[in-house]
């Protein structure tokens, strides 16, 4: 059973989340010189294990990661493709628990590996209580997700309590569909993405606080926030490809399609734009430029997915090259011509796909 779970849930989980994990990895270590990584890693581990606040932050992260993995498995279980998993009910409880434990240890591996490193560091530095707390939290999270999955599969026939008694039904016009999907199906990814985006933006502006009001600092901060959205954009792209394909045979013109896409991207990135407005020196011209820069970058990320499909490896390579190119353009004060080039190229490519039925 475990082998089957790994080949289905495990493979799919890492395929979907490779982007997010690598972006976190790049954000943490990408800017370090190779010789400094060991010392840097050591400093992070010591910082994480030494105060109650950092431990609470790490436990919250583990909890979010655990919930993310659980939601992923439960969502898959609710799809017809994964209905075969129900057959596992016929196996002994012990065997079922063993296979789900194996799967969750693999899904949670990155968080568990770091947690174990924190525990070892805490023991070395005599923070025994902190090490104990992290161990307990780790066990509780793993046990919790296994238990919920086991109950879902074996006792799914029991009616669940209806917590949402107050239902507000709002009309959902077409332009809101991707937003609804994001809020209902990718809420956790949205939270993680926004947290990362906020941390990147604030981190970079603080790091270069002594450089005065150089707009390039804010643009680089905005660029990192944009990159933090790449995984979420990939998830929404997948949703549109699989569940909105029915609209491809409807007479919706190119400009309406682009309008829906840009409106969604604008709403998605609006909090970061507000953050930018609150921190950077403002003028109407600079604001227009920043808006163009943000929309062109987000549309380019979406266009890249149209080109590479669901090949996450290729998408990540694209993000890396894109990041370097835009960074260079910002540093050489050429971000406006580049933004124009990106948005014109993306729209041209969308037009080409539209006329070639490559929707």
């Amino acid at each position, binding site marked *: 059973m475990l082998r089957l779970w790994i080949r289905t849930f495990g493979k799919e989980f890492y395929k979907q989340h490779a982007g997010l994990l690598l972006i976190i990895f790049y954000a943490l270590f990408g800017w370090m010189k190779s010789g400094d990584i060991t010392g840097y890693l050591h400093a992070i581990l010591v910082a994480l294990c030494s105060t109650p606040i950092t431990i609470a932050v790490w436990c919250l992260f583990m909890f979010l990661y655990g919930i993310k993995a659980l939601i992923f498995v439960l969502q898959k279980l609710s799809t017809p493709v994964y209905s075969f998993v129900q057959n596992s009910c016929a196996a002994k409880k012990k065997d079922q628990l063993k296979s789900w434990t194996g799967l969750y240890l693999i899904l949670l591996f990155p968080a568990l590996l770091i947690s174990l490193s924190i525990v070892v560091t805490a023991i070395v530095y005599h923070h025994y209580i902190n090490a104990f707390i992290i161990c307990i939290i780790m066990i509780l999270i793993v046990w919790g997700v296994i238990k919920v999955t086991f109950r879902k599969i074996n006792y799914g026939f029991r009616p669940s309590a209806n917590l949402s008694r107050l239902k507000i039904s709002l*009309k*959902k*016009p*077409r332009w809101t*569909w991707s937003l*609804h*999907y994001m809020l*209902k*199906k990718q809420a956790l990814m949205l939270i993680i993405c926004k947290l990362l985006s906020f941390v990147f933006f604030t981190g970079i502006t603080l790091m270069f606080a002594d450089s005065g009001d150089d707009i390039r600092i804010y643009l680089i901060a905005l660029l990192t926030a944009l990159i933090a959205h790449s995984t979420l954009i990939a998830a929404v792209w997948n*949703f549109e490809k*699989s*569940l*909105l*394909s*029915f*609209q*491809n*045979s*409807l*007479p*919706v*013109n190119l400009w309406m399609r682009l309008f829906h896409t840009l409106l969604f991207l604008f709403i998605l990135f609006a909090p970061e734009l507000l953050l930018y407005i609150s921190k950077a020196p403002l003028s109407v011209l600079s604001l227009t430029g920043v808006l163009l820069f943000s929309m062109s970058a987000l549309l380019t990320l979406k266009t890249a997915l149209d080109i590479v499909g669901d090949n996450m490896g290729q998408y990540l390579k694209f993000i890396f090259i894109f990041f370097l190119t835009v960074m260079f353009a910002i540093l050489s004060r050429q971000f406006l011509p580049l933004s124009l080039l990106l948005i014109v190229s993306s729209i041209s490519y969308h037009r080409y796909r*539209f*006329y*070639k*039925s*490559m*929707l």
Partner: protein
Amino acid sequence: MAELTINKLIKRYGGNTILEFDEWKVNEGCYWIKGGNGKGKTTLFKIIAGQTPFSGTVALNDIFLHKQPVSYRSGISYAEAEPLYPDFLTGTELLDYVIAIRKADRQSAAEITRLFKMDTFMHHQTGTYSSGMLKKLSLILAFTGTIQLYILDEPFITIDKEAATILYQLINNQIQQGKTILISSHQDIDPAQITLSGIFEIDNQHMLTC
């Protein structure tokens, strides 16, 4: 009267050629497209529906898909074999969207919904629908608006006998109005229910007349 013309069609997936034929033309009436699994029926329907890239030309009443995609699509409707919709949307929200896009008559859409006995479920989210209800919803959406060419991929699977009878009625109404209907079906189509204008079979990448 509707006329669908396909010329020099080539469709490949990777290096594998699925469809390759020089010319295929159908006029008004109902046509049954046969072919075993994997022969390319759904691919052909997706090509005609403008959902997948291909080489060649597809035109409806001399409106070419590649040149005037919006005009072309306003003349066709496509009901997929296994329709999928976002589970948080209700049937009504999807129907409203199609009515707005096709500038369709709301009353006739409501009438089709009532015929399929879906009116009481339209305010429910599609995530709560059975496969038969999803199929009925896709047929309601397909028959909404003024259409010249209906592309119905396996329309009789998963729906009950009563709904199949309604579907036969709708198809016959459209035939009488001079519309073109393409149906793919593994089940035999009852000649007492629909008068077929032609039967074709996809074999070895070609379209053959039966």
